[in-house]
């Protein structure tokens, strides 16, 4: 989860998020090297003694500083496209979760299993336990099995919301009258936090998402206990 002054991406809980982090590291290194190069060129201007009042053009240098950036961009674009298509791969989800955004809470439905439905409200700060996370904890978490493909359908009942869990690399807009679908895979147990990511009114900042990832047996037990 995010704490104050966090700058980087959160630790991944999904293979796709892991790949996104790898691509981020690759692109950032290239950008840092380009920045260092430009900084060096600017620094060297302090020590320049040459002036050419009749300079008009330089074909060779212009070819170099056109072709080299194109080559560098290739090294960024090819991994980017590979990841883009990887994110769209078709798989067979074992669980389907529906998430509906409201002002200002999320409601969830597990239609695969006897229509389990519940609302998920943020726990107000004055009711928060001493070890709770302010503005992040909710009363009912989303329980999902780990090591299983999960399909999520996101929509909204009033205005546009956005269902986000950074640790899983998931961000899906919930638009009224529309179902948006995405898949993800959680590869470790734990609690993963997110917050609504589309401005939706006064309490837009106060409708978080918490996923509790549990082993499959525990998930089945939870489903059974909710049925009874």
């Amino acid at each position, binding site marked *: 989860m995010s704490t104050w*002054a*966090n*700058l*980087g991406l959160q630790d991944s809980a999904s293979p796709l998020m892991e790949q996104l982090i*790898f691509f981020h*590291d*690759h692109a950032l*290194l*290239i950008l840092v*090297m380009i920045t*260092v*190069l430009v900084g*060096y060129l600017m620094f*060297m201007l302090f*020590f320049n003694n040459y002036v050419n009042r009749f300079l008009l053009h330089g074909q060779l240098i212009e070819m170099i500083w056109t072709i080299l950036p194109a080559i*560098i961009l290739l*090294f960024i674009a090819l991994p980017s496209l590979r990841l883009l298509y990887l994110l769209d791969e078709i798989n067979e989800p074992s669980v389907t979760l529906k998430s509906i955004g409201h002002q200002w809470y999320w409601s969830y439905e597990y239609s695969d299993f006897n229509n389990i439905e519940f609302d998920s409200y943020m726990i107000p700060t004055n009711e928060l336990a001493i070890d709770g996370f302010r503005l992040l904890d909710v009363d009912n978490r989303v329980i999902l099995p780990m090591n299983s493909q999960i399909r999520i359908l996101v929509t909204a009942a009033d205005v546009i919301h956005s269902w986000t869990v950074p640790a899983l690399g998931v961000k899906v807009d919930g638009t009224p009258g529309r179902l948006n679908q995405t898949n993800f895979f959680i590869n470790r147990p734990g609690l993963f936090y997110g917050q609504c990511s589309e401005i939706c009114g006064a309490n837009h900042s106060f409708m978080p998402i918490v996923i509790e990832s549990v082993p499959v047996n525990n998930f089945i037990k939870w489903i059974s206990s909710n049925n009874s």
Partner: protein
Amino acid sequence: MAEEPEEPGKSFVIFGRDVAQIPCFRNSFLYGISGGIGIGVLTFLGTSRTHLSTHVGFGSFFCGTIAYWVACRYQWSVRRFEQQQLREAMRRQALYEGTQVERDLDLKSA
């Protein structure tokens, strides 16, 4: 029973991120910086031109770092993919051991 001393893990934190844990990062910069300094010094020894040697050294650092990084990351990602395939194959082997599926697969590969 004597306890083995733990090796201190290499750690280099920039803006909250331990960059030493990023695959290929440490080696890229070690080879890039040392190669840049080395080639810059050799250029100076050969030409006695300070500005040129600085430019050559920096250029070597830039090209060396990026080239090593790209090559190392590509090889790392290929190895990682093979490791994941192997892990999945071992999982499936444990799952199908002693079943008809395994016997059919053995017949196909025989």
